[in-house]
Each structure stands twice: as structure tokens, then as C-alpha cells.
């Protein structure tokens, strides 16, 4: 809310300049968001111009509709400085004078409220007017607060809205059929052309202000074009009413129409302010020479406002704030803000809430008023007592931290990408079921929840490749989404060098085994031994893609990114990108539960034997390994490939594989014969069942 410093001074004699005022108000709940010099121009007649006039922009929180007005802010300022507040008096002289209500004679129009649930109060008054431009000082004040001056009559309604926070409207009296004002719900199919020139369809739950024939305004939102005040208008009817916040809010939202008026009604205008505002508007008519109120003010109030009274105890105040506030201070602060404070018992009060504070509904709300005006700066900085030992944190947090450390050590940098992606990007990863769509996405780029972290991560790789990065290693730990729920995933992408350039040797590009090795390392951290099997997926190149499993459960994939997918994510053509994804939640579930116990170190030496076999290259390594392991005695500790060769010396269709077998017994040193027999059996199994040849 923008406030003109000199306008504020109409109501309170602020001793500080605009900057210092803004700083002090910020500490009391009205945060200063901007401070600019005021536009030059006239001061109201009889008021001295302020030298360094300024526009203060306060951030008014959603609970304070009263502060969407100069007087509302002035009341806060008066409380902060302990100064009296001068409201625009109904009897005062000068530019702040309001009309003497009793002097308003004969009316010439009627008001009927058919929907008192949505409009419990409607004040109307007729006036003879001479439509023309407002004087400079009115135009300047409106413009400073961001409202465009139009004509003197319309400017008065806006002036009162800005000054008192009560939205007003002016109808052309001649254009009201039967000079009647009827407040009712819209009829089904009814239409109205609003002041902005747009024709709008109304629904039966919207409140309209109508004459005898048709709707002439949308209640609390915007007036109708038909009854708009024009230059030729000579007689008007001012409206000053109270509309139900929920109704105005729903109507404004349905019509897609937000106005200065609807903003104030939505948050809750002061239900006691309507007659005051009308008096002010009539006075302004005379002050600026725009006309004279004619006839009696009509105040239709079928459901009078019942002020709220709340109990408050001194113990509650100090107990919630955690600082001492003397009882006299509690009373003084509340009264300054317009609350009526009545002692109810020793150290307890009954507090009546003024109409302009719809936000104050509980004792805690009163305590906030006391705390904020006594000053949060007086709060001691203390710490909450510990009542019990803290419970353990979510187990995913330390787990993810461990995985993160492993990935960083393996040379991957950490990425964070958006959880929503393009529908086409998600499609290859969505495993049959469509990805979760958003009802109101910001754009097609953010249309569905990612079924995998890979699309986002690959996009990040593409960004880096287009920005001078030849070697990219990225990982992300985040949530993937599916109709079956949320899963915590680890994704990794690797392109470029496997081993960085070094003067001692040649650069080697990343291959499948670099990334499958990283997967193996991560699984091993969980005590899980992964197995890899060929797989066909939409995003990986067949033949260089594996499904990762443990104990028969699929836990992820690893492989070469399909060129079509790489292309779709903006990677340069021909880029070789390996990607992997692991389901960390499933990995956690597969991790051994038993508490780890240290194994006794072996007391006897192990025996190591190497063997080279020529095997058909269609056989997978795991088959050879498993066949040999099946034929081995329990003393076999491990069998693992240490060399693999294909080329000169290997007949076509075969590959030379060298395996290192380690044997050990817990209770004795193994003899050469024992080990030789075991090796013979294992080699025999390979040659017999797999057609391998020993080299």
C-alpha cells in the first residue's frame, strides 16, 4: 500500500521524516518496501506544503484490510509514537470537514436489500453535481497512490477509498430505472457491461446492485457502464456498503476481475464505516466545489454488526511472548489501537474489538498486538528447554549423504533439476503407465512429474556440453514420481573422458564398465551384490544396456543413452553418454538387516591360481564364472576375470578369458594337490559344458 507522507500528516503529527518513519514502522509489522520522492504539486487549501514529501510503500499483510488506507496506517503510526489520531471529523472545518448529516434533506431514491446475508448494510445518498476535473491537490494525492484521476465525482469515491479504506461508487441518478437501488443475487443468464467496457455473464451466486430493471453493478467489484457518471450527469447517488468477503472473493475470481474495491471487501472492510465514509464523500463534494449533497442519507442495515469481545489474561500475554509487559502497558497499547479494554478480574480483561479489525478473533491475536507494539526488540533471546532426547532423523537423510559422498569421490558433481518435465521427455521413461500430469502447469516444459531423474540430468549434461565442457559427470539424488507413489532415486550421467588427460598417458573415453563399476560400488555400500543382465529399454542402446538386480529384484538400469533421447535433450550429435539410475529405497530394503559383526581374519594362507580359457564369445562372463563356481569345492573364495582378449591368436567367434581363482580354508593350509584337483574340476566343467578350451 502506497501512502503519501503529507496525507498521513493530516491525521497524525509524525515527528520523524519519511525514512525514519518507514524504519520504525517496519519494526512494528508494516514493512517498508519502497520509498520514493512524492510527485510535485499543490497541497490542500489551508494546509502547509511538506518540504520533503515522499511516497512510502508499505507491505500490508493479508490480515490487515484496515491498513489498506491512509487512516489505517495513521492509526498504527499514532500508536507507535504515542500521538493522538485526528480522524476526519463530521463537524470540523477546513478540508477535512464532513457534511452535517442532519442537514441532508429529501432523497429521491429508494434502497432495498434482497440478499442481507451477502450485504448486511447499504448506505446511499443523492447529490447535485457539476462534473469536471478535480482540483490539483486531489489529483496529486490520487496519482501518488497509483490511482488515475478521472472526474471530480469519481475521484471523490477513490479518495474516500484510499483515505478511509471504504470502497464507494457513484451512479448517474437519471439512469437508475425508477430511481430504485435493489441489492440482490443475479438472475440466471443475466449479463452486465462493467465500467471497463466488457460484457460479463453473471451467475446466480453473484451479488449485483440493480435498479428496477437490470443490474447496474457487480457488488463490491465494479460498477456498470450504463449508470456510469458522465460529464452531462447532474445528479448522482453515492453508494457506501459492506459486502461479505467470501462472496466478493468468489465473484472477483470467477469474473477474473480484481479491483481496489474487491481487494478491500475480500479481506474484510469495516462494517461500521459506511455512514462515516458517506459523510466524508459528501463533505468532499462541497470542499472541492463539485456539488452538494441533496436529501437524506439512506442507511439500510438489516443485520447490524455485533462487535466481538475477547477475554485476555496478563499471564497469557507474558506466557506466550516470554517477556514482561506491565499491565498498564497492555491496556495502553490496546486502547491506542482502538480496542475497548474493560477489567474483568485481577490481571484479566474483556477486550472489545473495533469493526476495522476483522483479523482479531482470539486472545492470541490481542497478544500479538501487545507484543508487536511493545516491541519484538525487547524480547530476550532465549532457548526452548529440552523435554526429552530428540528422536532419530529420517533414515533417508544419512543414507543419501553417504551415497552423495561416494558419488563425489567417484568424480561426479551434484545436480538439482526440476521435478516436472515435458511430457515427450517423460514418455520413454514412463514404463507403460503415463507420467503424472499437472492440471495447471506453468508451461508445456513443466507438464508432468518426472518418472525418472534421467531426463532432467541429461538436459543438464546437454547444457554443459554446449558451454565448453568436454567431460561431464553429474549425479542427482531426488524423488521420481509414478501413480504407485514417490521413490528416492540416484541418477548418474557420464560423457567424455573416463580418465582425465595427463602427461603420463593417453586419455581414455568413458565406457559401459566405468559406470557399471560405479553402480557396483554404490550397491556394495549397502551390502548388496548387484547382478547385470542385458535389457531393452526405450532410452538405452540395445546391447549396451543392463538391468541391475539384486536378489531377483530390479533396482535400476545402466547403459549407453539412445541417440534419439540424447538428441531430444540438446546434446551435440555423436555424443557418447552413459547413464545409470538406482532406486535407493529398494536398495535400502534389500540391505542386510543383521547387525554387522567382524569376521575373524584368516589364519591360513590363501592359494591363487590363474587360468586362461578360450570360450565362445556369445557366452556371458557370468555364465563362465557361475559354471566354474558350481564345480568348485567350498574352499573357493573368489573367481574374477583379470584379462580378456580377442584378436590375433583367437579363432573367430571366440574370446580368450583369464580368470584368477582364490582358495582358502579356515582350518588348514591347502595343499598343492587339493588346489590342483579343484582347478581341474572347474576347468573340466567349463570345457565340458560350455565348449571352452584351456589355452
Amino acid at each position, binding site marked *: 500500500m502506497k501512502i503519501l507522507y503529507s496525507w498521513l500528516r493530516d491525521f497524525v503529527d509524525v515527528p520523524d521524516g519519511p525514512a525514519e518513519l518507514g524504519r520504525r514502522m517496519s*519494526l*512494528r509489522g508494516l*514493512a*517498508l518496501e*519502497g520509498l520514493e520522492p512524492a510527485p510535485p504539486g499543490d497541497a490542500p487549501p489551508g494546509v502547509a506544503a511538506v518540504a520533503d514529501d515522499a511516497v512510502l510503500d508499505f507491505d500490508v499483510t*493479508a490480515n490487515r484490510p484496515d491498513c489498506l488506507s491512509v487512516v489505517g496506517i495513521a492509526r498504527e503510526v499514532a500508536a507507535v509514537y504515542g500521538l493522538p489520531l485526528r480522524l476526519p471529523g463530521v463537524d470540523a472545518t477546513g478540508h477535512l470537514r464532513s457534511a452535517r448529516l442532519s442537514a441532508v434533506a429529501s432523497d429521491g431514491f429508494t434502497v432495498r436489500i434482497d440478499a442481507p446475508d451477502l450485504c448486511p448494510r447499504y448506505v446511499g445518498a443523492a447529490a447535485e453535481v457539476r462534473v469536471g476535473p478535480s482540483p490539483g491537490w486531489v489529483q496529486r494525492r490520487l496519482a501518488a497512490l497509483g490511482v488515475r484521476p478521472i472526474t471530480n465525482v469519481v475521484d471523490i469515491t477513490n479518495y474516500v477509498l484510499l483515505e478511509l479504506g471504504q470502497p464507494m461508487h457513484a451512479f448517474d441518478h437519471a439512469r437508475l430505472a425508477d430511481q430504485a437501488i435493489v441489492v440482490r443475487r443475479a438472475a440466471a443468464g443475466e449479463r452486465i457491461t462493467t465500467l471497463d467496457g466488457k460484457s460479463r455473464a453473471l451467475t446466480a451466486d453473484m451479488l449485483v446492485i440493480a435498479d428496477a430493471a437490470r443490474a447496474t453493478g457487480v457488488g463490491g467489484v465494479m460498477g456498470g457502464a450504463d449508470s456510469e457518471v458522465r460529464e452531462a450527469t447532474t445528479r448522482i447517488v453515492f453508494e457506501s456498503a459492506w459486502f461479505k468477503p467470501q462472496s466478493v*472473493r468468489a465473484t472477483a475470481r470467477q469474473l477474473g476481475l480484481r479491483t481496489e474495491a474487491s481487494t478491500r471487501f*475480500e*479481506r474484510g472492510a469495516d462494517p461500521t464505516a459506511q455512514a462515516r465514509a458517506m459523510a466524508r464523500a459528501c463533505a468532499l463534494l462541497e470542499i472541492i466545489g463539485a456539488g452538494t449533497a441533496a436529501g437524506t442519507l439512506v442507511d439500510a442495515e438489516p443485520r447490524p454488526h455485533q462487535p466481538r469481545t475477547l477475554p485476555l489474561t496478563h499471564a497469557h500475554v507474558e*506466557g*506466550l*511472548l*516470554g*517477556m514482561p509487559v506491565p499491565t498498564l502497558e497492555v491496556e495502553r497499547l490496546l486502547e491506542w489501537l482502538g480496542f475497548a479494554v474493560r477489567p474483568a478480574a485481577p490481571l484479566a480483561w474483556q477486550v472489545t474489538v473495533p469493526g476495522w479489525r476483522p483479523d482479531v478473533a*482470539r486472545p*492470541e*491475536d490481542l497478544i*500479538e498486538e501487545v507484543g*508487536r507494539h511493545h516491541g*519484538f*526488540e525487547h*524480547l*530476550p*533471546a*532465549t*532457548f*526452548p528447554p*529440552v*523435554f526429552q532426547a*530428540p*528422536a*532419530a532423523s*529420517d533414515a533417508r*537423510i544419512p543414507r543419501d549423504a553417504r551415497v552423495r559422498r561416494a558419488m*563425489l*569421490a567417484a*568424480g561426479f*558433481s*551434484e545436480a*538439482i*533439476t*526440476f*521435478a*516436472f518435465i515435458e511430457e515427450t521427455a517423460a514418455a520413454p521413461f514412463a514404463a507403460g503407465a503415463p507420467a*503424472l500430469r*499437472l492440471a*495447471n502447469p*506453468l508451461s508445456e516444459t513443466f507438464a508432468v*512429474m518426472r518418472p525418472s531423474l534421467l531426463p532432467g540430468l541429461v538436459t*543438464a549434461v546437454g547444457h*554443459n556440453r554446449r558451454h565448453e*565442457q568436454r567431460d561431464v*559427470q553429474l*549425479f542427482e539424488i*531426488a*524423488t521420481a*514420481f509414478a501413480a504407485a*507413489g*514417490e521413490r528416492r532415486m540416484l541418477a548418474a550421467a557420464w560423457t567424455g573422458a573416463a580418465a*582425465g588427460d595427463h602427461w603420463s598417458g593417453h586419455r581414455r573415453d568413458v565406457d559401459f564398465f566405468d559406470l557399471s563399476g560405479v553402480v557396483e560400488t554404490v550397491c556394495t555400500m549397502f551390502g548388496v551384490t548387484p547382478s547385470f543382465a542385458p535389457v531393452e529399454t526405450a532410452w538405452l542402446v540395445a546391447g549396451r544396456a543392463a538391468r541391475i538386480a539384486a536378489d531377483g529384484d530390479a533396482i535400476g538400469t545402466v547403459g549407453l543413452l539412445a541417440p534419439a533421447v540424447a538428441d531430444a535433450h540438446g546434446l551435440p550429435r555423436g555424443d557418447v553418454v552413459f547413464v545409470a539410475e538406482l532406486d535407493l529405497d529398494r536398495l535400502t530394503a534389500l540391505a542386510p538387516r543383521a547387525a554387522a559383526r567382524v569376521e575373524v581374519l584368516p589364519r591360513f594362507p590363501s592359494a591363487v591360481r590363474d587360468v586362461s580359457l578360450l570360450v565362445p564369445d556369445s557366452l556371458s562372463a557370468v555364465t563362465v564364472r557361475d559354471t566354474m563356481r558350481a564345480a568348485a569345492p567350498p574352499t573357493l573364495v573368489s573367481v574374477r576375470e583379470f584379462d580378456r582378449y580377442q584378436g590375433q591368436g583367437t579363432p573367430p567367434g571366440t574370446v580368450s578369458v583369464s580368470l584368477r581363482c582364490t582358495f582358502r580354508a579356515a582350518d588348514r593350509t591347502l595343499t598343492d594337490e587339493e588346489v590342483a584337483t579343484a582347478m581341474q574340476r572347474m576347468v573340466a566343467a567349463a570345457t565340458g559344458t560350455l565348449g571352452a578350451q584351456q589355452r
Partner: protein
Amino acid sequence: MATLEELTRLVSEHEAAFALALAEVDAAPATARAAAIEALTVGWTGRKSGRLTDLMGHLPSLPAADRRAFGQLVNALKSRVEQALTERALAAAATKRPAGAVDVTLPGRAPALGHRHPLSLVREEVQAIFTRLGYQVLEGPEIEDDWHNFEALNMPDEHPARDMQDTLYLAEPLPPSLQPPTAATTTRPGRRPAAPQPLTLLRTHTSAMQIRHMEQHDPPVRLVAIGPVYRRDNLDLTHTPMFHQCEGLVVGHGITLAHLKGTLLAMAEALFGAGTPVRFRPSFFPYTEPSAEVDVGCIRCGGVGCPVCKHTGWLEILGSGMVHPAVFEAVGYDPATVTGFAFGMGIERVAMLKWDVGDIRLFYENDLRFLGQFSK
């Protein structure tokens, strides 16, 4: 004022002195020669106090017309000195190199460590601060129902405060069974809906976790919840539709606003350094009463006022307050016997202030030139 003649003599004297020193070095035993050459190099060509540097210092005392001639004289001497020293240094190095020596100045094979994401660094720092203060750290579901994200937090449908956070909704709701059970299994009274609700939205704040936790646990409570949140905000310098939040909640007997202030000031100092100006200022949130915001002194201008802080000298880092009694009623806590405080802070915001990041979108580009600057 010196004359060119005087200074030319001075240059000659220097040349003679250097020849003498060089002869001494040549006469030194082989083992001491390298050190002697090093000492001579520093003494003559050192940038701060080398004799040649001092010699050149006489330049301003000459008439402008003679300066060029003097400069040439000194530079010629300098190159003769450097040549002599380099020749002797190379010779000395060749004689003392042991067998099998490697050139230790070649680059080593440094294992390439990955870089941390700054948001992850801030997150870990916040976790560490609150773990130290005895809080448990929680995560929670990112797809939420209306009850946990809004209703239970004193934001019923049609509440103006819902405008404060523009929400992203799922096209088709998911069954409530996908999230941890809450309402159906809680025996405490409370304002909660009769049956668990379908999951319809992306959580707009981590505050939803307050409700989930309180529904399942009796007081006292002492937790922080961290994770991504979502709002329908267009991408610009300070907004992204996904960002990260850290939520804190403490509930127990006699918890006060002063406890909140102490806790938040301690956190701000831990994050931004001791002595950082911090202020605690009234504000409004539907789920707290009283409510407060915390500002830190503008990092960019030091509090003088600049465009970053909108000339106020302060930057807001978080919202907080005393838990609203309506929130306690929603989860079946008795507001007459317990009070509590809560706060919510944007991780991106902290990272932007901490490292002077001007554009929030940098966090989501994952540019290695950006990430490469974070290696803790």
C-alpha cells in the same frame, strides 16, 4: 635533482659489484653453490628489495629528458645479470640431480572429486545447526492433500491467504494410501476430515510436515523438515516453480516467542557469521500468531541501502511465529496446555545471500562452471 652523469657512474659501480659477487659464488664449494646463486638472485633481481629495483628507483629524480637513457642503461645491466644467474642455476641443477630423479614440478594424478551443489551445502549446514540444538530432521511426501497443505494450517478453502501461494495441482488425484497413514490411524481428537483425502497437489511449503508429524506423535515436538516445495511462479531472477524449504517446529509446555527469537538469531549467526546484523520483526502468516519475520543486514551494501535490499538495508530470510491455536486444534493438541513455535526458510534465498548469487535460475542449470566453485 640528480644528473645523468652521476647516475651513469652509479650503474657502473653496480656492475662492478655484481662481477665481484659472481666470482665469489663461482669459488664456492659445489654443495653450497645452488644456495649462493639463489641468494644472489634474490639480492639483485628481487622485485621488492633487489639492488636493480632500487637502482631503477632513482629514475624520478632525473630531468624528464634524461630518464629514457638511464632506463636503458639499467635494463641492459639487468639482462646481463639475469643471464649470468640463469646460466649458473642451470649448471648447478645439472650437477646435483640424483639418479632416478623425477621432475617434481610436473602435475600429479589428482583424483577428480565432484563438486557439491550449493543448495545441498546450505541444506547440510542447516541440518547440522539444528542437530546440534537437539532437533530431529525429517523429510516428507512432495505430493500432498489439501488437508495437510492448507486446511489444517488454518487456511480453509476460500481463505485469502491461499492467494499468497499459487498451487500446482495434479490432473488426476492419487489415492491417499500412497502417503504415510495419518488421519485414519490417529486416536487423538482433532478437526481432521472423517476419511483420508486424495492427494491432489504439490506441497507449497514444508509446513505440511508439521501436521503429518503432530498427527502421529504427542508433544513435545522438536523437528526440522527439509525438502523441495512447489509453487506456480514463473521463472525469473528470484523465482522458480520448484525451490527448497526448511521448516522448524517446537511444541511443548511454556514455549514462548522469546525462545523462537533466540533460536532464529542463533541460526542466522551460524549461517551468515557471528556479528551479522539480524532483526526480528512482526509479520503475518495464517498458521502462526503472533508471527514474525527475520531480516539480515544486506550482504551487498552492508546496510547502507541498494537495489538488492530495495534501499532498506535489510533482506528477509524467513517467516516464523507461535503456532496458531487452530493448528493445534486440527491435530488434536490442547492449545490451553501446549504452545509452540514454527519457522520456514527458503534454502535458495540463503544460498543467494551467502554467496551473492544474483539469479536463482543458476541453481537449476547445473553448469559445471558454477558448481565448480563449490567444493566443500
